[in-house]
């Protein structure tokens, strides 16, 4: 059984070089005064431990009121997104061994309203998700057979399908920070996923839906989302490709209009 010690009762972890993890957690509890505060916890770690496990240890043994989301603990469900030392990460995928140098600051994922402690309200995220009609709209075929697809097509879509909708890219996105109406990296990646899916009959509709400042033109192309994505999805790449497609459509309609005028 791991022994846990409260802050203040132990020596400085750096001085004694023992495997003690110090977490400074930003708390939030509506209705309390103050409703926001920072609290320090210390957890004795074991080899291979991740941050989510450390949070469970605190919740079990030190403070049962500490609230955070969790489920799979294997970086596939997208529940435990949070900000750790200024970087947005999945807690389950963050090794505590990398956090021992100095106290670690844990905050909720930014740009979303906080509900309690590390739990944020992702309504905006899923509202934006719904806006792009995120479901395949294919042509009717017999219920007895699948659509045929080249493996090469699948690989192209797969880069975007791997998104787990954890919201981490929104936390780090300067465009979303400035404008909460900006569809956001994960959602634009989702739009691109359906755009490049040969089974989906939509083309102009999807491009139309993202052809605005809240869509692909709002992106600052700073690639923050690409850097932080825990699943190696590259929203910016999809965004830039959609911009290209929109420009080509504009150009071709311009050319055909000129052509008509000259006739």
């Amino acid at each position, binding site marked *: 059984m791991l022994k846990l010690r409260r802050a203040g009762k132990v020596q400085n972890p750096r001085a004694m070089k023992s495997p003690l993890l110090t977490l400074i957690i930003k708390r939030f509890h509506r209705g309390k005064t103050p409703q926001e505060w920072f609290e320090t916890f210390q957890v004795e770690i074991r080899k291979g431990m991740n941050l989510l496990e450390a949070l469970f240890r605190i919740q079990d043994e030190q403070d049962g009121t500490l609230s955070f989301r969790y489920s799979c603990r294997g970086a596939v469900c997208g529940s435990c997104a949070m900000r750790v030392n200024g970087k947005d990460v999945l807690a389950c995928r963050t090794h505590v061994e990398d956090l021992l140098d100095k106290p670690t600051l844990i905050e909720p994922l930014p740009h979303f309203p906080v509900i309690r402690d590390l739990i944020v309200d992702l309504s905006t995220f899923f509202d934006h998700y719904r806006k792009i009609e995120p479901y395949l709209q294919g042509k009717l075929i017999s219920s007895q057979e699948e659509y045929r697809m080249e493996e090469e097509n699948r690989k192209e879509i797969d880069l975007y399908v791997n998104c787990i909708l954890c919201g981490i890219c929104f936390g780090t996105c300067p465009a979303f920070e400035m404008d909460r109406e900006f569809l956001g990296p994960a959602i634009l990646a989702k739009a691109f996923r359906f755009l490049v899916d040969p089974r989906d009959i939509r083309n102009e509709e999807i491009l139309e839906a993202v052809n605005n400042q809240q869509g692909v033109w709002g992106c600052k192309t700073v690639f923050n989302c690409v850097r932080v994505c825990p699943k*190696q999805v590259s929203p910016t790449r999809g965004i830039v490709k959609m911009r290209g497609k929109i420009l080509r459509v504009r150009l071709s309609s311009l050319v055909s209009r000129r052509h008509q005028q000259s006739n």
Partner: protein
Amino acid sequence: MEILSHDILIIGGGLAGLRAAIEAKKAGRDVAILSKVHPLRSHSVAAQGGINAALGNALTPIKDTWENHAFDTIKGSDYLADQEAVEVMCREGIERVIEMEQWGTLFSRTEDGKMAQRPFGGAGFPRAAYAADRTGHNLLHTLYEQTIRLLIPVYEEWYALSLIVEEGECVGILALNFFEGTIIPIRAKAVILATGGYGRIYLRSTNAVINTGSGCFLAYMAGVPLEDMEFVQFHPTTLYGTNILITEGARGEGGYLVNANGERFMERYAPRLMELGPRDIVSRGTQTEIDQGRGFEGGYVHLDLRHLGGEKIIDRLPGIHQISLDFAGVDPILDPIPIQPAQHYSMGGIPTNVDGETPLAGLFAAGECACVSVHGANRLGGNSLLETLVFGARAGKKAVEKVETEKKIPRKEVFEEGLRTFQSQLEELFERKGEEPAFSIRDELKAMMTSHAGIFRTGSGLLAAKEEIRELKRRFLKIVPKQRGLAFNNEFIQYRELEGMLHLAEVIIEGALAREESRGSHYRVDYPDRDDVHWFHHTMAFKTAEGVKLDYKRVSITSYLPKERVY
């Protein structure tokens, strides 16, 4: 008192729950989903290797048929599966899988653009359709997308506290809105439980932290028996340290299991199928190697993928590649993956017929929390995803039929009574005296289950476990949550879930102790053979005031009499 109302209420937003909801909504019914997590965070998302269906897309000398699939499943189940139910699953599975493709699931492809299929354990054909090694993720996102299209409402981050039963019929539930802390009765003409498994009662499990078996517990508390709970699947390849799943697809693609002496040890246990034997046999083989000192220090062996080459690993097993890097610091292209067996799946659960109906009228179940039974004593890899779709859809359809004929409107008082009972229990809980921390009981339970009700079981170990459970249940009564009120009350949730975990553990132990034979995943060292004369039947466990009472039910046979299982 506020009462919410729906035609059909589904508890759980994983594959089975979402598929049931889609079926009901398409029939025009008012259906809602209630889930303690956002549906996309459900454990279905973690499924990796594939979903079985006899599509016959792989190039084989003879074409696969659903009958072949049924036979493999029945043999894999050590003949305990109900054969009629298996036939339904294997026949209808083909359509359910194609439907997922048409709804957008990004399946991997063959050269001619069809859904690719890979070999899986205990299967005579390459039958598992897959989306790289993220099949669960792809299927779950597809179904969730369909619920968005159909505008199906979800009570997100709500808990089901109890079933409301009136005159032998389930008429709704008591629900907890976790963020508000309010207890709200929800009336429904049909309730479908789709809450998944209970893996977290084991110390070592591939399951998500949320998998505490709450649906099985809800049914059990309402007087519904639980079927075949002693049949617990242990997956042979879970990542050493975290027990995160490493798909059977890794062996399907050609991976080797190797002990510390460098031997492909499956030669000793399944000489013909080797690494692709069924899970019960591969898990026992792997554990035997570790127990007999041919594993590595700490208790693991190697899953070696290196000979597959980097390209194939990145192409077919990208998720495994990433999981190994993220959680074990191992690159499977360069080094073998350290693995050990761990709890993975529950073959048992709430008994249902092929339409998801349980012994309690108005209550349905589908997916891992149900026991149809299509897996019998051992599930084949790739059949659990299939089960969620086939029986999720069937439960949804049958629930619609029930709603259309249901005339009765339950009395409001029955909900008021339910609420009063719950509130008085709650007051009692908060009035208690005691200082027992819930987590220590939970951790002791997990360790005890892994050591006494694990891959190898003995009568004496199970008897000791039975005693220990009694003691843990006594200590459970001394838990007092420090927080009052139910909003964000993690301690209260843990308390509730622990209660369920203790009961389910007790049912597993009692069933395992009584079953003096070895069949599928249930292996008794003191009774190493299958005994069809005495034990060819399902276990039914009832909750009584005196504890668990066991009864037995016959196995349905259509075509195949039990035979010795050789692989």
